[in-house]
């Protein structure tokens, strides 16, 4: 995957976590996601369309997701709290929106976030755009930022294509 689309996410995850959660992020070496080998308990998903297409996933173990959602919302949020998916979705939205501003020369739109909650689910990738996984260590626990993006030189009108789906 083009590094132009990875560095903005490393900057964005740091910016969002430092500003909203007052915690620093230690980013590990990005790795290619092997099909069906990386499962999550909570995933926040945002689709991108326009000059860059694909999706971004923030994936968490459930305990880490609860700690992060609670710190973000300023109140205790459990997995079954009605505000839990809202907090995870908004964090994902901030990371995706913050990253796309650094896609130099690209006009890109983001979708509204979706959140999947359930043990051992897999967010699968398309064959043309594999996920690159950015492991992130925070004081609230470890999360992964998964990025599957492809540049489109001549975007089709009103193109909105999701490459992710929960299995």
């Amino acid at each position, binding site marked *: 995957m083009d590094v132009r689309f990875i560095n903005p996410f490393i900057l964005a995850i740091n910016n969002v976590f430092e500003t909203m959660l007052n915690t620093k992020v230690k980013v590990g070496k990005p790795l290619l996601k092997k099909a069906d080998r990386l499962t999550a308990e909570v995933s926040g998903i945002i689709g991108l369309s326009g000059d860059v297409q694909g999706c971004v996933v923030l994936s968490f173990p459930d305990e880490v997701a609860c700690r992060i959602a609670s710190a973000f919302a*300023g109140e205790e949020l459990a997995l079954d709290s009605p505000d839990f998916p*809202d907090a995870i979705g*908004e964090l994902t*939205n*901030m990371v995706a*929106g*913050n990253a796309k*501003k650094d896609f130099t020369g690209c006009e890109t739109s983001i979708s*509204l976030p979706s959140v999947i909650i359930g043990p051992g689910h897999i967010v699968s990738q398309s064959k043309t755009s594999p996920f690159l996984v950015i492991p992130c260590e925070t004081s609230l626990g470890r999360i992964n930022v998964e990025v599957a993006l492809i540049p489109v030189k001549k975007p089709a009108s009103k193109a909105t294509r999701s490459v992710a789906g929960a299995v």
Partner: protein
Amino acid sequence: MKILLVDDSRTIRNIQKNTLKTLGYEDVVEAADGLEALAQLVKEPVDLMLVDWNMPNMDGITMIKKVRETDEDTPIIMVTTEAEKTRILEAVKAGVNNYVVKPFSMDTLSEKINQTMAKAVAAT
């Protein structure tokens, strides 16, 4: 002073409410999208609006354009993840008075609210 918060995220509306409370503004009404906000404005006028961009049913830019058809004066601050210059220009063209990019610190939001209200008071 009555303030309308328009954001589809309840978490963000709560964060904004807490910031407003520290600034002494407690009369707050909320809407989860542009349509709800327009309905709210029919019920009662407000003195300031904080509006998100990406929302279901009606986005913030569409809502602001509709508001500005009949109301040129009420201050509007856009609070959004959309950070590109082209988007900021689009928002200014639509009629926003100030712009806050998410993620934001409480200090930044406070500063923009104070700035916007000071300009609004000076203009009257």
